[in-house]
């Protein structure tokens, strides 16, 4: 059977052959032009996005700086109109050399809520730490110093490591480790496990593993440049599967529904291991540790909670109709299992959204009034825990600072 047409004799092909060879220069120049202007387009979006996204970079004008082991930390000496970071990296005034030897010190560590962050952060003198210090002076009496060790974006792993580093320098009597039941706090997307030292600097594991050794200096230089300049790159390094978490836990909230998930199991195991290391460090130094349970921003009201549940079902949210306080209950159980003492600010924080016009500076972070409310709740816990005040006083009296 003969075919009706023969491709070799196709008219178009004959025409094409007659046209001669392809002029490659205009084609390649056209592609190059398209490629360059496409990059300009991406860069434009990057710049605009960077202005909208406040939590993205570690550049020189940022209150944060890179730090090995912690990944980032507060930049000592950083100053702006609301903040002055102390030489220890705390958002508190310097501890004077002649501070009373028997003053009681409370060190709080945790994420931006503790730091007093957000797009419109309150002044460092109008956050929970100075408020609590004032209330302790007024209501309890004696010498108190409350230090704000909060750092923007910190996970519990980072906060616990940071507290452990501060123990010998701050010599606190009580450490408050603030924890929320969400992904950032409990599953640690910070990169603490995604980096390892390479030629004296921390470098992402995926880059170290994927690229050949001779190319690594160039690859890491590009990585550093993009981390400093590109908000889109930072977003993907932090949220994508490379340095963050897979999509199904991207909006994780503690619940029974994901306790069997390998990512969650691994994340929780690491988080609790760090808390337990901090607890051991505190015990060795005779320091009391309290894990303070905060609400996640989506738990501030029932309405927010329902919207979160309905919008994040495939991304780690507990099942629809889960009670708003269920994550705190479960977290309490997990802490109890490990013998870790904890407080919860659940009741005080439940009113934040209802009074948001004065307690919240944005949808998540507290205004000065919100910090005052939290400080009041902390005071209640501190005073309300039987024997805690006496324990702190007696221990410090037995071993005043500078006595050894």
């Amino acid at each position: 059977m003969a075919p009706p047409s023969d491709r070799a004799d196709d008219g178009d092909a004959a025409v094409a052959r007659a046209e001669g060879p392809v002029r490659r220069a205009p084609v390649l120049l056209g592609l190059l032009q398209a490629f360059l202007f496409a990059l300009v387009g991406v860069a434009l979006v990057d710049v605009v996005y960077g202005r909208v996204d406040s939590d993205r970079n570690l550049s020189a004008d940022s209150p944060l700086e890179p730090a090995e082991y912690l990944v980032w930390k507060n930049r000592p000496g950083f100053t702006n109109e609301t903040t002055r970071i102390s030489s220890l990296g705390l958002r508190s005034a310097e501890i004077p050399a002649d501070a009373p030897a028997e003053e009681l010190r409370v060190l709080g560590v945790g994420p931006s809520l503790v730091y007093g962050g957000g797009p419109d952060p309150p002044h460092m003198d109008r956050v929970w730490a100075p408020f609590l210090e004032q209330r302790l002076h007024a209501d309890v009496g004696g010498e108190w110093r409350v230090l704000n060790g909060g750092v923007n974006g910190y996970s519990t792993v980072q906060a616990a490591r940071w507290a452990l580093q501060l123990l010998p320098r701050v010599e606190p009597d009580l450490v408050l480790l603030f924890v929320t039941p969400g992904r950032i706090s409990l599953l640690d997307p910070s990169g603490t496990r995604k980096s390892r030292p390479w030629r004296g600097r921390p470098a992402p594991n995926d880059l170290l593993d994927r690229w050949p050794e001779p190319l690594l200096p160039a690859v890491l230089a590009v990585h550093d440049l993009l981390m400093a300049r590109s908000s889109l790159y930072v977003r993907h390094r932090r949220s994508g599967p490379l340095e963050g978490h897979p999509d199904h836990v991207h909006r994780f909230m503690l619940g029974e529904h994901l306790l069997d998930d390998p990512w969650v199991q691994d994340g929780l195991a690491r988080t609790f291991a760090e808390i337990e290391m901090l607890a051991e460090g505190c015990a060795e130094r005779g320091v009391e540790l309290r894990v303070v349970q905060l609400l996640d921003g989506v738990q501030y009201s029932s309405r927010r909670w329902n919207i979160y549940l309905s919008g994040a079902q495939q991304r780690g949210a507990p099942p629809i109709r889960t009670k708003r306080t269920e994550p705190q209950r479960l977290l309490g159980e997990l802490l109890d299992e490990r013998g870790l003492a904890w407080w919860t600010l659940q009741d005080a924080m439940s009113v934040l959204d209802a009074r948001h016009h004065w307690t919240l500076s944005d949808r998540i972070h507290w205004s000065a009034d919100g910090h005052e409310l939290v400080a009041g709740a902390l005071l209640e816990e501190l005073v309300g825990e039987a024997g805690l005040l006496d324990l702190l006083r007696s221990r410090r009296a037995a071993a005043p600072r500078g006595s050894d």
Partner: protein
Amino acid sequence: MEFHSARFGLFLAVVLLLYWSLANRRGARYAVLLVASYVFYAGWELWFLSLIVFSTFLDYFCGRAIHASEDPRTRRRWLYASLGGNLAVLGYFKYSAWGADGLASLFAAVGLDPSGLSWVWRAAVPVGISFYTFQTLSYTIDIYRGKLRPARSFGEFALFVAFFPQLVAGPIVRAVQFLPQLDLRPRFDRARLHDGLYRIGTGLLKKVLLADVLGRYLVDPFYSAPESYAWWVHVLALYGFAFQIYGDFAGYSDVAIGAARLLGFDLPENFDGPYRSRSVREFWRRWHISLSSWVRDYIYFPLGGSRGSELKVARNLFVTMLIIAVWHGSSLLWVIYGLLQGGALVLERALERRRGGEPFTTTPVRSLVAWFAAFHFAVFTEFFIRAESLGQFGAVFGTSGEETAVHTFGLLALAGAFATHLLPGRTSEGFRARVCALPTAAVALLFGVACGLVAIAVVGETPFIYFQF
């Protein structure tokens, strides 16, 4: 390697550079494309390559044998070898799990322990197997029918089977559409460059800003607990999935067509505003066009098409729609989907006969009524694509709760989908023409802005829905 990943962008840029650098060396430029296509496909699973190579060998040699023989019986034997080999592979990988499940149910029904069937290997379905199997089948069938000569070389045929832009989710390209293009001088001009960038950019936006946002913020939350949502959320979620699957698949097709255009190839269109259709028949001329036309030409027409008694035509329509449905997936839900589509086509045909062949849409009001009916039929039947089991039918259509919380992003995406999809075709075409008439720098800049927006919206990996088919 998903189309909406930076890795694919880099991959495409490197392939374009190599391909056009070797534009005047036929063998070398096609070798670049073939190697790139295999690298692209091996990115999913290396062993998937063995199947595509098997299919390529089988059909290349069957095609040559059919062409070389004058004896009708020999020719038919080689055709059956091609059909049998391809359909056996497709059937095994795509339907063995279904068969194992059915066998387990049968065991359980007669009181036997189904755990004894654990030896049945549930093979992973290789991505794109349905697409390239239909492509290679069209090759041998067209040679058998005398419409096509065999490929000039094994390499060129391998490139036809594995051409990476459309390898894993179509459009389904036939050999008669692709192979002749290999003989043409590589084509590249300003219009092709602009159109290619436009198609890729809009395809990515459809996938990430339309389909993924609808899925994440409206459809997935709803389907996780449909009974708890108020009735109007049910309606929104059904609309939402209709636009999600459209945006996902049409977006992929757009990127495929655009990427091919940058390489100098033309792929057939796959979508033409399907939700603007005013009948089910028209819908299937506008939805997944490359599949519906394939099934029409290779199954419906050979069965007799619309010739013969009404009973025979009805049978042909049901068989055709069932094949389209089962091509997508091996489940009872897909079978029901196919039966509903077949039934609707038969009903439309019967109504048309009652009107003596006169079209229904003779006035604007009638057109609106016809559009409304066809659109909502599509929305309703697509429930069977999204549902996880038939048991969800009652939860979606028979119950409702009090939950009304719907994420704003989901509502915005749905409003945007309605607005863009239901615009007259000439409006979107006019917009495309105006953008493509801009200078190259401006088109590329807009393309970059689209990529930037996609980069913001992409969180984690959200594979294309049609990869599973």
